């Protein structure tokens, strides 16, 4: 008799069930995401300028949620890959593959907004500060993961390779963070460490929280949409294989 644990996983992993859920949920998610994003941005511009950093502190309202979401997205990819590998659910592979470019763009946003923030603060576009360097390495991990999906033709081989890479990469992330922190304490001039995160006044905290929730809902909306399109693409490919449609022969995986 199966344990209830794997029962509900099998229940959720049914692609038909997922598509029915997605059909209902996706548009409202987009609506909520956009509404929260607009509200968050209004609050962000309404907040007072920082006494130390002036107007540029507002970049924080995009930079910080993007950073958190890039890490959350990779954790999501890790969990989805483990579920797919251990419980053999194709939906896990679909979910991981769907979330990857989203997470990569969040990481890139973190880097770019960090650079834009860094220029007025540190006088330079890029600093090998511990956090920026860790996000740069995370971005490269994302790129490698996306590249694997695109490089391998056979879908099941690609899925397996990608899930192994996701798991290895996830274990690597705290190791990289630890090593980059250590490396930074060796080589970092003292002036940059002055800009460590200060305690946040509620004037800044509320827009920040709203933006974080907005980014999270945006992530969900994006992943749902991408998973839907991936499942439709899979169905279309399978139909083409069954009918031998010449127009779709030779189309690459993805």
């Amino acid at each position, binding site marked *: 008799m199966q344990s209830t644990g794997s029962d509900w996983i099998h229940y959720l992993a049914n692609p038909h069930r997922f598509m029915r859920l997605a059909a209902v949920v996706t548009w409202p998610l987009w609506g909520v995401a956009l509404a929260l994003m607009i509200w968050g941005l209004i609050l962000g511009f309404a907040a007072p300028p920082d006494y130390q950093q002036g107007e540029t502190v507002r970049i924080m309202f995009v930079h910080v949620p993007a950073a958190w979401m890039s890490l959350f997205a990779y954790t999501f990819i890790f969990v989805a890959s483990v579920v797919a590998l251990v419980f053999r659910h194709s939906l896990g592979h679909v979910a991981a593959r769907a979330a990857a470019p989203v997470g990569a763009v969040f990481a890139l946003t973190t880097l770019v907004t960090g650079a834009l923030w860094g220029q007025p603060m540190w006088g330079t576009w890029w600093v090998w500060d511990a956090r920026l360097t860790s996000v740069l*390495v995370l971005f490269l991990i994302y790129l490698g993961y996306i590249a694997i999906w695109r490089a391998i033709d056979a879908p099941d081989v690609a899925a397996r*390779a990608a899930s192994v890479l996701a798991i290895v*990469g996830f274990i690597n992330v705290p190791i990289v963070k630890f090593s980059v922190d250590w490396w930074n304490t*060796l080589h970092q001039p003292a002036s940059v460490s002055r800009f460590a995160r200060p305690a946040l006044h509620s004037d800044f905290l509320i827009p920040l929280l709203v933006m974080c929730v907005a980014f999270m809902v945006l992530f969900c909306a994006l992943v749902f949409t991408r998973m839907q399109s991936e499942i439709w693409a899979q169905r279309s490919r399978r139909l083409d294989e069954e009918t031998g449609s010449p127009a779709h022969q030779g189309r690459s995986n993805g």
Partner: protein
Amino acid sequence: MIRAFYAVLELDIRQIWREGSVSLVIAFIFLALTLVPFGIGPELALLRRLAPGLIWVIVVLALMLSLDRLFQGDVDDGSFDQLRMSVLPLELVILAKILAHYCAVIIPMVAVLPLAGILMNVDLQAMPRLMSMILAAGPALCALGAVAASVSVSVRRPGLLTALIVMPLYVPVLIFGANLSMGVDMMNGQTSALDLGLFVMLLFSGATLILAPVASATALRGV
């Protein structure tokens, strides 16, 4: 089973020597080190300061070039399927290949390092420290490289894909290896004896030697 392990090990070492990928790797190291002074100027003090870190970076890049041969050749000519069916579990086969790569690629690389170090005006008293750190990190570099090679083995023309995948895995090894080779103490940031760093690096190598074959085998079983 132990005989089978040594058989795979010896076979792979012979294969590496026959392929000549070691010469490619060593040639790359010398090419790159020769280019460096043309780029940054021949000032000896500068070269001496940069040497350990630069040598580490170039060694890591050279190793990335050689990673594709770990599994690609066997998969292409069908001997991988033979190895899969052998009495050795796939993880041990991969471990043997990792160790073969270490013996046949890393050790020759380290052997030519004193010569390379002369090009960079390395302090010859610092050479043993540098060489022992690279030897200690070698198993980790080969093991992590095996994970990346196993993931990209089914790609027709991998190009730099393996290098892209392995690069985030190499970042911690490079950070600890290079900075400890420069004689920096792990705790205080002052120059001191290397022993703690060497020990930590050996522990890390041991850990990757255990975990990497498991990950690589999982990826290769899908091929």
